[in-house]
């Protein structure tokens, strides 16, 4: 059984990491090696590389070039990465905070028409987001929101909030009311009971919710493209814009940037993986 498990895991691991490995190799290549018709797989020093061999001359040039603006672009890669970080983190934070508060209300208080409200919240995800690109753009023009960080933060928060509310409600429903009631009779106000008892217990749920919100905001492309052409351009839009450039597609540079873009999310997900697992199976195991 144990070996059988590895027999499945190892091929799947290789398959899943293949694109990442290829990305990493490409980021070390020169433009010529990257577009060469013979695939070279082994990074090496310049002396050891013969034409047609599997080795190529490894260089960190692609990473260095990220710091300087690409032809036709106003800023260097890190400017756009910074946009992505700001927009991703702030929209995630807002979604989780609002989602937790809202879910607590739905979970603990009698709200007239609670089921209908919850369905309404979920229904905001029924429509493909891109279907509302034009109306959103028109509304945003009225409020001067296109080309701003705030615009994208608001938009991603709006999209992620329904998910955050539903996820967090599931988690908070699982926390026995007796804990809060114990805090109430122990002399604490409902608000104190919320942050002393509910918050520590919903940390897992908040981590899970944050991962989902962050990934969706981090990778979003359609709205980021439609609403921006200057100030708040995020990394996915920036890279898409590099294609079709007069110098040809700068593959090593894109690979280096994408790697820097992907790695933080991967690390973050790995760090909270235990919470994620617990989150997915939450409520199925009696504690």
């Amino acid at each position, binding site marked *: 059984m144990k070996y059988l498990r590895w027999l499945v895991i190892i091929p799947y691991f290789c398959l899943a990491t293949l694109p990442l490995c290829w990305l990493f190799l490409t980021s070390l290549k020169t433009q010529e090696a990257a577009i060469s018709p013979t695939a070279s797989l082994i990074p090496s020093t310049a002396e050891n590389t013969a034409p047609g061999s599997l080795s190529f001359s490894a260089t960190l040039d692609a990473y260095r070039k990220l710091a300087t603006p690409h032809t036709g672009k106003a800023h260097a890669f890190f400017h756009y990465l910074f946009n992505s970080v700001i927009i991703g983190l702030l929209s995630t934070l807002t979604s989780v905070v609002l989602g937790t508060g809202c879910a607590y209300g739905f979970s603990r208080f009698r709200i007239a028409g609670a089921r209908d409200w919850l369905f309404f919240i979920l229904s905001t995800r029924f429509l493909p987001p891109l279907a509302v690109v034009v109306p959103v753009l028109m509304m945003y023009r009225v409020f001067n929101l296109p080309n701003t960080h705030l615009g994208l933060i608001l938009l991603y928060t709006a999209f992620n909030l329904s998910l955050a509310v539903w996820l967090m409600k599931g988690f908070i429903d699982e926390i026995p009311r007796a*804990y809060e*009631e114990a*805090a*109430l*009779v*122990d002399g604490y106000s409902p608000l104190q009971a919320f942050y002393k008892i509910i918050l520590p*217990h919903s940390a897992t749920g908040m981590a899970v919710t944050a991962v989902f919100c962050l990934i969706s905001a981090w990778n979003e492309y359609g709205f980021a493209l439609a609403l921006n052409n200057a100030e708040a351009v995020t990394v996915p839009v920036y890279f898409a814009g590099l294609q079709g450039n007069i110098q040809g597609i700068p593959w090593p540079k894109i690979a280096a940037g994408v790697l820097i873009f992907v790695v933080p999310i991967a690390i973050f997900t790995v760090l909270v993986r235990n919470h994620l697992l617990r989150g997915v199976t939450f409520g199925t195991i009696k504690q």
Partner: protein
Amino acid sequence: MPFLELQNLQKTYPDGTRAVRGIDLRVDKGEFIVLLGPSGCGKTTTLRMIAGLEDPTGGRITLDNQNVTHLPPSQRDVGFVFQFYALYPHMTVQKNIAFPLENIGTSPSEIEAAIDRVARALSIKTLLDQYPRQLSGGDQQRVSLARAMVRTPDIYLMDEPLGTLDAEHRLELRAFIRRQQLSLSITAIYVTHDQEEAMSLADRIVVMDGGKIRQIGSPSEIYTHPADLFVANFVGSPGMNLLSGQIVQNGDNLTFTRPDTDIHIPIRANIAPAQVVFGMRPEFIRPANRGIPGKVILSEYLGSHGYVHVDTPIGELVMRSTDRFATGEKIHLHMNETHIRLFDPDTETALV
């Protein structure tokens, strides 16, 4: 002036369920009151209203000369012990016990002294650094008691605190609670459906059913003089033998009898002939050479004593006995006439 007073206390849930239908109760300082009743009788709802965890829909609660009817729990000085312990899982035992003191400006040294005091009393000193999930049910409930006791509140409210424990821990903790009550004369309201627990702990028992109080009295009053058929049947294990029949004039004497039998049980009460329900506890029936003839249909052996179910011409009777009988054995039964209880079959209340 009673220490705690409930006046016409009511709770109707938004779905229309009337959990508590008007309760009047006066509790003196230092009294240990047990609310006893089957599940769904409103006893837990009553307790939660006293704590402030449920908002009453009618009536009034007065605690220590203050109207607390709609005050939040934090503004009443109550200690609550939950059935499922409700210890904070993310805090150690020590933190759990300290929690009620932490927001009322108690100094760290006072907190430490208070924890030491209750931990010693409940013999949980060795558990202070552990987390609730590492403890057995009995130990968790000790910690929960310690958390309620650390603040010395006006009144203790306990919601079936021993209900989920195994028999050994239950008896041990029951004895502990009773000792605490006797030595510190705490005021407590204790909810249970276990009549043995109620009998052993209570100064007064409040028997509840259907959201109403059926009877208030000392354990012996409740047991020997049940106010109605519900209490007669619910208190006591097994409950009182209850037979419906009538009182008839038999020469100079009144007797109880049933149709189609010539058995007459003398009644010495001052009562007019009428339809009644006749009641007698199993321990006041004993085997005899003469008396009511019957056949043993079931014999339950419980060690120190047993219960014998006997089929007689006036109906099936349960007798408490230290002797053992074989199923099918023919015996005669004698009833101790001074312990006869009579009830009105229509109002179900006690007649004498």
